[in-house]
């Protein structure tokens, strides 16, 4: 088990390294990085000053060293627009994104898991077709469009829900739905196939041979086993949600890190953009690492693989 953890840790560290390297290289190698790293509307002299200050004429690996050392010190630069350290800005917005992601996740699981189970149990019958349609729509309807249409319906026409901001519980309903919609379809798909696999297993066969009522077979034997891969995916998806929420947060003016990214783009506040992407990617790598470990704890066979 220890070997497994060490291996996974090494893997995660390499990924983090490559992530930072990718971001670093893209900035430095496409045109003049000073343009990005300086406030919009700067003059030629400012640009030259920045060149010297940031050491942009030094060899690449030296620059990378500087980049990494400031990263590790927690210095992600300062926002041009807000004039505060980006890290502080990011951390102050993160809880909102986590809240939205959690709400969206709850929604997607509440909808996805039962419909996936029903689709598997009633495979190839009516409910399965409904499920397939739902899955397809989930993939094809962009989340932000779903959000916009919902605003049209529930805010403009019906006036039931607020269209933007984050004041109350009502504010989170529509964004959570718009964000969770795609994932509900994905979770439904996975639940269905996982359930089908479990329903074909030997222990379910034996449970039926024992003469147990079908409801018990499904609820007890099939359900728990089928849920394992789904919950693992859900864990990873939570972090992904935080990242892709940028459009939904923009539509609903929800003050999370996604909206922060949008502001960074709109105001040409590059340190914010860079930091948000970096943090987003890093979170995913970290969560993936923990989920791998968790999976190995649940299923002893995984520890001895690879």
């Amino acid at each position: 088990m220890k070997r497994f953890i060490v291996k996974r840790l090494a893997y995660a560290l390499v990924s983090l390294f490559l992530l930072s390297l990718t971001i670093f290289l893209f900035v430095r190698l496409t045109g003049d990085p000073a343009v990005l790293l300086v406030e919009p509307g700067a003059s030629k002299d400012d640009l030259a000053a920045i060149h010297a200050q940031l050491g942009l004429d030094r060899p690449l690996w030296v620059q990378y060293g500087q980049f990494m050392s400031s990263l590790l010190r927690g210095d992600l630069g300062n926002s041009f627009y807000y004039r505060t350290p980006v890290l502080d800005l990011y951390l102050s917005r993160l809880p909102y994104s986590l809240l939205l992601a959690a709400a969206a996740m709850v929604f997607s699981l509440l909808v996805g898991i039962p419909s996936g189970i029903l689709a598997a149990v009633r495979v190839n019958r009516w409910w399965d077709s409904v499920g397939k349609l739902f899955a397809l729509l989930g993939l094809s309807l962009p989340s932000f469009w779903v959000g916009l249409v919902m605003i049209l319906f529930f805010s403009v026409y019906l006036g039931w829900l607020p269209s933007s901001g984050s004041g109350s519980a009502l504010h989170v309903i529509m964004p959570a739905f718009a964000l969770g919609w795609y994932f509900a379809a994905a979770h439904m798909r996975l639940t269905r196939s996982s359930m089908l696999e479990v329903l074909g297993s030997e222990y379910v066969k034996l449970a039926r041979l024992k003469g147990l009522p079908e409801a018990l077979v499904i609820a007890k034997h099939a359900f728990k086993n089928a849920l394992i891969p789904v919950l693992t995916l859900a864990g990873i998806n939570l972090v992904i949600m935080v990242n892709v929420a940028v459009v939904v947060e923009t539509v609903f003016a929800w003050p999370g890190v996604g909206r922060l990214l949008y502001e960074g783009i709109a105001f040409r506040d590059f340190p914010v953009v860079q930091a948000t992407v970096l943090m987003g990617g890093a979170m995913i790598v970290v969560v993936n690492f923990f989920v791998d470990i968790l999976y190995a704890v649940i299923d002893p066979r995984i520890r001895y693989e690879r």
Partner: protein
Amino acid sequence: MNGSRAASLTVAWRFSALRVEGFPWIPTIILSTIALVAIFANVLAPYNPEVGVLGDRFRPPAWQAGGSEAHLLGTDHVGRDVLSRLIFGARVSMVVGFTAVIVAGILGTVLGILSGYLGGWVDQVIMRVTDTWLALPALTFAIFLAAVVGPSEMNIVIILGAVYWTRYARVIRGEVLSLRERDFVRLAIVAGCSKKTIMRRHILPNVLNSAIVLGTLMLGVVIVTEAALSFLGVGVPPPKPAWGLMLADGKKGLMAGYWWLTVLPGLCIMLMVLSANLLGDWLRVKLDPQLRQL
């Protein structure tokens, strides 16, 4: 059986598969219609999509009160005809979508073949990069790249290609790994063919199937991502008519109830993506049962 004969048999089978029942007529018709609309946009669109008459702003569609036959689907916030913008938007979506898919496909297939066939450190490097890029959500990555290089139609295609090639590389590499062990490849090695020749003549034709299936599946994803990028303002730059951009503009009129600026472009996106997904799904099942777990 050498690689090219295998490949031509595959091609024949590919088209014979199209004659099988279950062929998704509606999605194909929809996609073809959109393609035709895109090609003949100049002829079909009643107005110039980029120029508007300010006095004519926010006209609703013809069937609603206040609408007129002159603008069947209404006008937007600067008086441009919505129908024309939708028509030209099809062109943008098709061009960007297809080109990005092809760019990603070529890049991903080539790297996948190299990675799978050559193995060793080439494989390791490509795989590590692929895993890292796959870990970062495509949208975030694309936004980042767009912020770095600046938005333009050309840049978007490159960015989307750069973000999505990893999906191809993974799958193609897996196929190449199993192809490597097949007899006709081994025969070629024994016969003294160079690695380059083998990859080109034997491996490549056999992975084309998967590449095409992946391409159809990716088309939908790429279009949604492009729409998202345009919506955020880092995609296709104004005043060019892109459906995503129309959604961003539409948001301005949303609270006032100007529904057609939001619903109509979204419907177009949905139709195109849905059709591409259905077609891709059908292709996947018909052409290569091994890809069913995609």
